[in-house]
């Protein structure tokens, strides 16, 4: 089979070929890519706004007071690990088609994601305690909304993972469920990439 026939859409294909389901997956997956690119524009704009507000601390806490690199290292590890485990879920789906195994890896992914969010919330609470609230300055408004937007995306992703585990058990591994898992995977990896941007552009740059 040629490459074009096996790889109908960019992303992990579900199997060699299964007719109509394949074609349907091609359309929705492509649509989801366009959505992700649109979402990337949104993140880009929050990034750009953050960059222009870098110095607008209005005498309030600046990067050096709010960046806790230890916590960021922890968050990064958890999130990158969760992308790996989601990869295991996808592989389980592609090669084993075993609901239990897929659900297990999805569960681990969600737990790691929840760990990430928990650490992030802890940092936010600490910031609030030292007065680094978003109301304090333009810089902090931009900081909270960029990091918070990503955190919100991850939290929604965790909810979606939960919904998908339910669907695996209630609906079985139908082609619709598979194609949804595929898109959820794209979403999850996408958030990882955005996080790498945030980690470098917001936290590492702030610690320098």
């Amino acid at each position, binding site marked *: 089979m040629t490459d074009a026939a096996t790889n109908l859409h960019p992303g992990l294909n579900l199997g060699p070929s299964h007719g109509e389901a394949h074609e349907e997956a091609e359309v929705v997956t492509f649509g989801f890519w366009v959505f992700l690119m*649109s979402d990337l524009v949104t993140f880009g704009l929050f990034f750009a706004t953050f960059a222009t*507000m870098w110095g607008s601390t209005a005498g309030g806490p600046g990067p050096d007071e709010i960046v806790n690199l230890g916590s960021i290292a922890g968050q990064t590890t958890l999130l990158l690990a969760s992308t790996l485990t989601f990869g295991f879920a996808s592989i389980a789906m592609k090669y084993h088609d075993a609901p239990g195994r897929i659900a297990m890896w999805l569960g681990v992914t969600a737990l790691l994601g929840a760990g990430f969010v928990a650490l992030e919330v802890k940092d936010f609470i600490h910031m609030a305690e030292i007065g680094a609230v978003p109301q304090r300055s*333009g810089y902090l408004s931009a900081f909270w909304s960029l990091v918070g937007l990503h955190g919100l995306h991850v939290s929604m992703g965790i909810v979606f993972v939960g919904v998908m585990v339910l669907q695996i058990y209630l609906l079985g591994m139908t082609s619709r469920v598979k194609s949804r898992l595929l898109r959820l995977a794209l979403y999850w990896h996408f958030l990882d990439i955005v996080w790498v941007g945030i980690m470098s552009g917001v936290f590492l740059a702030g610690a320098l």
Partner: protein
Amino acid sequence: MMDSPIFGRLTFDDIAPLAVFRNFSLNELVASGAGWLEVFAAVGVVAALTYFRLWGPLWREWLTSQDHKKIGIMYMVLGFVMMARGVAEGVIMRGHLATALDGGILAPEHFAELFSTHGTIMIFFVAMPFITGFMNFLIPLQIGSRDMAFPLMNQISLGMTAAGAMLLLVSLVVGQFETGGWAAYPPFTGAAFQPGVGPDYWIWAIVVSGFGSMLSGINFAVTIYKMRAPGMTYMRMPVFCWTALCTAILLAFAMPPLTVAALMQALDRYLDFHFFTNDLGGNMMNYANLFWMFGHPEVYILILPAYGIYSELTATYSAKTLYGYTSLVLATMCIAVMSFTVWVHHFFTMGNSATVNVAFGIATMLIAIPTGVKMYVWLATLYRGRIRMTVPMIYLGGFMVLFVLGGLSGIILANPTINYQVHNTQFIVAHFHNVILPGVVFATLAGIHMWFPKAFGYRLEEGPARLSAILWIVGFSATFLPLYVVGLLGYPRRSASYTDPVFEPYMIFTALGSLLILAAFATFAWVFWVSWRNRAALAVPLGDPWDGRTLEWATPAPVPEYNFAVIPVIGTREPFAVEKASGRPYVRPDEYEDIRLPAPSGVGFVLCVCAGVFGFAMTWWIWWLAAISLVAIPTVLVVRSFFPDRMVTIPADEVRRDTEAWLRAIDAASGVDRGEELTSANRGFARTDLKEAA
């Protein structure tokens, strides 16, 4: 201020139509009167639907439909309803300005509210629904598809747009709108200067409808990329689809900046953030950049489909293949890309460095090149064509002359040094109305005339429609062209009164001109009415009243819900024209298959209600209601995702029966010649005089 836990900050005093009883003045009378009018109109519609027992059909056949054609038509209806209000506001503003030497009939606050709602309505809830409506109706038909890529999402997009429009309508009756124009620049619209509900109405109308438009963009793009009939390569797509594809990409990438700008403004207003405030490091320039990163592409979102419509009708009504298809496609792509590189020309005077201004000035002027290419392509198509001066051609004529004028004034504005002189004067008002009205609105009206028979099965009355077209052209010219002079004389934009008597004659003249536009709008409504009454004589069931060229004309009128009995295989650029020119149109399908289409669904409507309620609750700080409606939206979607998509099947026999009947009628008909296409002899079967086709 104490807010009630149940009603938030909403009180009895916020019901605007009652204000006139508390405090009588001409200004209050106009404001309250408009509110009353809207309430009466709403009550009238409800009463009429009830009296004619139309609720059932409305729900079953329209509100729950996933058919792209019906969704497209509903977008157009929404556009017209909102346009009635937008035009009325325009006329009231011009009426006020005619009396505004040292004062005027309206309070300055009220005038500010008027230009803000007028601009917001016209851009987001008239022009956007119009072009989205056309894209919905035409794209699947022109690319040979049964539907959009995501029919349910399409319904949801419509619901979001309608919810935004509802918020604007409600703002006239409950509370008031903001006074900072359609761009709602902070800090003027920030909590410090406008603590009331006005800017919040704007924010939620924009966020909700902007989200819908972004989803439409994705839907259109995927439809065109993935749903084309076999053999329809990119370079065989009709030009309208090309413009739609570029527009779709612009929608997907230019709507986020608007949503982000509006949400950041919401954070400033609701949670005391400092994105755009004057104090604590806020920076309004970020807003200007974000807003116009959307705002400039937006004008191309509006104009590109209009160019597509003009391209199709130029070829059709001059019975020639479009000259220079490839250059038109390239020009469209160039414009789409360049539209993202010019946004700073909207704030040349806000203190950018000269280098930045020069760069953006040059980038802006460059867009004139592909636009000029288009103008020449249309002219070359008309050259030696067999032109029929039907209604769309009248609009095209008006467009060609007036749009060039508007474009030239745009080049003038693109020069930063001149811009310093005329920015924020009536020159700007003249310029953008000059491109939007002849560009977008005329294209819409012309397109309606051309495709109305496809949608409803009968033509529009030619006589009154011509009158309307001429009134639009004359009315536009009288209303807006003098404003160039007024602007050069220094009369500022958005200014409720003036002191220099030299402006007065112009203001009176343009007020009279606006009455002509009102008459044009009313005449257009009348066209619908007389055509409906006369629909038997105007019927064109055979589907091709204008000797069309593209795929949609090869179907009956109105188009069956499955669009094509059999998905066509495409071998050329203008398949239907080529078939006709070679004498073998209407190929009979060899065999028929069952057709499966999505069943009606209430999801779009439910989300429309949830989004509208959410916007209203947020505006009035009714937190419990906002929370419920916000949570309801994902809940509905998640719950639905557990159930299979319901489909309806149209049996092959039924498709065969209808198609064969239609083809037999065509065999029995004798074609109508171009000279008689405006008579009742035109049943939609053209005796073609297409000799050449691509």
